[in-house]
Structures are given as structure tokens and as C-alpha cells.
């Protein structure tokens, strides 16, 4: 082979080597070099003359770009397991549509309506949404990539039972969907009302000089109450879209019920919910009013506890019924 041809082949093999895994570089390049040399010799024998640079360039071009040739030797790589792609898409859809949109609407609706330049606030909302969405997509993708990298197995995907699949959409009672939607609307309204009523509030002042002083416990429970209310509203919203996700909904309901019971227990333990300041009332009347007011809150909290316990029992029975109805394990697929 002429020197220029050797140089061309060497350059080609060097370019292929660049993309190859380090441990196999020398071995693969030696084999490719041998193959090319055999091909050149055969072609030269057929043509009856030594190949010139152009003829050799045609052979190398036909073989493919160095990166393409090297890619055949690289292990098959992927970011996310294809089997997990439907779950990945579902998680993104839930986060971007069903968490972020209501959350941003909740956070920005007030400022947009009250800000002097609502357009500017809307633009800020959109920018923040895209920033948050971009970061979330990155984080969710990273989590799924890590799950794939460390070969985390999802037993649920293997141990499934066709008899436990959700029903076909459209056949369920339309009322269920509307009930959940109503629950979501009520929940978000309650959360907004809670923020409006209690945000950094330490007292209520009424005309005539009467003041209702809030006990410190209300500051303690402000964020937990908001969190539980929003979570409950969010899952109601989700249930209105996916009414067949009854097991998930029941578990979340039991969770929010337990959180609600904890908050109620903290409230009851604190005792003095409110104090009353009124210059027109005698000390005895003031004490009676405070006792009556605190007693009313006491009973309201107790009623709320009863409702939460009832709801939790109802959901737990629903879950247990589902588990008892669980059929015998099916034989694994062939």
C-alpha cells in the first residue's frame, strides 16, 4: 500500500479509536485495520493495480463515518427504561398539570387580581411556571434515570392481576366524578378562606372595641391545616379526573384524616383557643363569654374529630374489603 494510503487508513482508524471504549480500543482497531487491509488487497487484485487515494477514500466512505463505525461497539445506552416510560409520562403529567397548575393558580390568582399591573404579574407567573416546570422535568428525569441505572425493580409491574385492573372509563357513575370535583372546589375555597382569615393574624377586632385574641396554638397549626386542606383538595381534583383510582384516594384520605386528628389533638391539648377583650363587659361576663366561646370551639373540634374518625374507618373498611376480595395468586406468565 502506498504511503499516502497507509496514512489515510491510519487517520481513519485513529478517528474510529477516539470513539471506542478505552479497554477495547487497540483490539478493535487492529481487527478493523486487518479487515480493511484484506479488502484493499482483494480490490487491488481485482483491478490489477494499486489503489490510489481517491479509490481508497471511496472504500472508507462506504464503510461509514468513524463515529458511526465506533457506535456499533458501544453498549446500548438509554436514559430511562422503556418499560418505565408510561409511568414517567404519567408522573410528569400529574406534576405539571395537576399539581403545578392549581398551585400556581392558587398562589398567583390573588396577586394577579389585586396587583396594579396584572399583565406584569401574569408574565411573572408564566416565567416562574416554566422555571419550576423545567427544574421538575429535570429532577423527575434524573430520578427515573437513577432507578434504571441501579436496576430498581418494580414488583408491582410483575405481580399484577387482570381482575384488579380499573374499569373502562365512562361506565362509572358520573355523580362520583362530580362529587370529587365539588370536594376539590370546596377544598381549594376552604384553603383560600383559611389563608384570608388567618394569615399572620393574632386577633380579630370588631366594631365597638371588642377584640378576639387568638391563642398561640393557631400559629402552630396554620401551615399544617393549609397543607392538609390543599392535599385533600388536590386528591379530590385528581379523583375527579381518575375516579377509578379508589385505592390511592382511600390511602390519601386515611393519611389526611390522621393528620387532621393530630392537628385536632394539638388544638385540644392547647386549650385556651381565644381570649376576649371588651371594656364594656364586667369581669364575670367576660369570663362567661370566653368560657362559652372556648367551649364552642372545643365541641366543634370534637365534632371534627368524630367526623375524621368516621371517615378514616369508612376508608379503611373500603381498603380492607378490596384486600379481602383479593383473589388467589395467579400463576406467572409463560
Amino acid at each position, binding site marked *: 500500500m502506498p504511503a499516502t494510503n497507509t496514512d489515510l487508513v491510519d487517520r481513519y482508524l485513529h478517528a474510529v479509536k477516539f470513539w471506542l471504549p478505552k479497554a477495547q480500543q487497540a483490539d478493535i482497531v487492529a481487527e478493523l485495520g486487518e*479487515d480493511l487491509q484484506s479488502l484493499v488487497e482483494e480490490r487491488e487484485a481485482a483491478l490489477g493495480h494499486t489503489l490510489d487515494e481517491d479509490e481508497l477514500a471511496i472504500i472508507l466512505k462506504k*464503510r461509514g463515518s468513524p463515529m458511526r463505525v465506533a457506535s456499533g461497539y458501544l453498549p446500548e445506552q438509554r436514559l430511562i427504561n422503556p418499560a418505565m416510560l408510561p409511568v414517567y409520562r404519567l408522573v410528569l403529567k400529574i406534576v405539571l398539570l395537576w399539581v403545578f397548575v392549581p398551585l400556581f393558580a392558587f398562589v398567583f390568582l390573588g396577586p394577579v387580581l389585586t396587583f396594579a399591573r396584572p399583565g406584569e404579574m401574569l408574565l411573572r407567573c408564566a416565567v416562574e411556571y416554566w422555571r419550576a416546570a423545567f427544574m421538575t422535568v429535570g429532577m423527575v428525569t434524573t430520578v427515573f434515570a437513577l432507578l434504571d441505572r441501579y436496576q430498581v425493580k418494580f414488583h408491582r409491574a410483575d405481580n399484577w392481576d387482570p381482575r384488579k385492573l380499573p374499569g373502562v372509563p365512562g361506565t362509572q357513575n358520573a355523580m362520583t366524578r362530580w362529587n370529587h370535583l365539588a370536594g376539590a372546589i370546596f377544598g381549594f375555597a376552604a384553603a383560600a378562606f383559611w389563608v384570608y382569615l388567618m394569615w399572620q393574624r393574632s386577633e380579630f377586632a370588631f366594631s365597638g372595641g371588642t377584640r378576639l385574641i387568638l391563642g398561640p396554638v393557631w400559629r402552630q397549626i396554620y401551615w399544617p391545616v393549609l397543607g392538609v386542606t390543599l392535599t385533600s383538595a388536590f386528591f379530590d381534583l385528581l379523583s375527579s379526573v381518575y375516579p377509578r383510582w379508589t385505592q390511592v384516594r382511600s390511602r390519601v384520605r386515611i393519611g389526611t384524616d390522621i393528620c387532621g386528628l393530630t392537628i385536632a389533638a394539638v388544638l385540644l391539648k392547647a386549650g385556651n383557643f381565644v381570649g376576649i377583650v371588651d371594656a364594656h363587659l364586667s369581669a364575670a361576663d367576660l369570663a362567661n363569654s370566653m368560657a362559652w366561646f372556648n367551649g364552642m370551639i372545643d365541641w366543634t373540634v370534637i365534632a371534627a374529630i368524630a367526623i375524621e374518625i368516621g371517615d378514616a374507618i369508612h376508608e379503611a373498611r373500603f381498603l380492607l374489603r378490596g384486600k379481602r376480595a383479593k383473589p388467589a395468586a395467579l400463576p406467572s406468565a409463560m
Partner: protein
Amino acid sequence: MHTNAASSELFDNLRLELRRGCLVVAVLAQLYTEHYGYALRKALGDQGLAIDENTLYPLLRRLESQGLLASQWREEEKRNKRFYRLSPLGEEVLPNLLAEWREMTAALERILGDRGLASAAESASESKKEK
């Protein structure tokens, strides 16, 4: 025009899928006797199964890493060449693979025969040879 290009692309993809498994069987069967890469490619091509070098060499490495082939560098005609042959594991696996392939071919033949597609396939094969 667009439909022709799309159908040609679709055919190429299907052909690739169809060939993938067959190439493994062919390479393993050919390597009952020892060959180096270039000679193996020639031998397969001479028997009507042309295989691109960019497909063959990575395939040989994959089969070797799976333990189905064994290889060694050896000098022949004053040049170092890497010779491949079926490993003991490959010798154990290949008959099962061939039996499976024969079953599939027989089933496919029955399906084609039942639907009268065999003659259509034959004429397509003839026209391909003429081209």
C-alpha cells in the same frame, strides 16, 4: 411518491428486524469451523447472506462476550488475524436455536401455504433476483 418512500423505509426497517435474528444463527452456524472476520464475511456473502462489516464485527464481539464464541489472534499470511470459532457453550446452544428456527420456518410456511401467499413470496423473490 411519499407513500413509496414511506413503504420502502418501512420495508427496510422490517427487513432489518427479520435479518437480526437470522444473522446470529448464520454466524454461529458458519463458525462451527474457524474463520477470521473478513473470511467469515466472504463465506456468508458467497452463500447469499451478505453482511455489512459494521454489523458483523460488533456482532462477533457481542456473541463472544456472551460466551457463544471463542477467539484468538494468530499470524496467517504474515498478518495478525483474529480467528473466531464456536465455544463449547455455543455448540450447546446452536442446535436448540436451529430447532427453534426450523419450527418457526415450518409454521411460517404453513401460514403462507394456507393463505396462498407462498406463490406471491416466490415471485417477489424472483423479481428481486432479476434486479
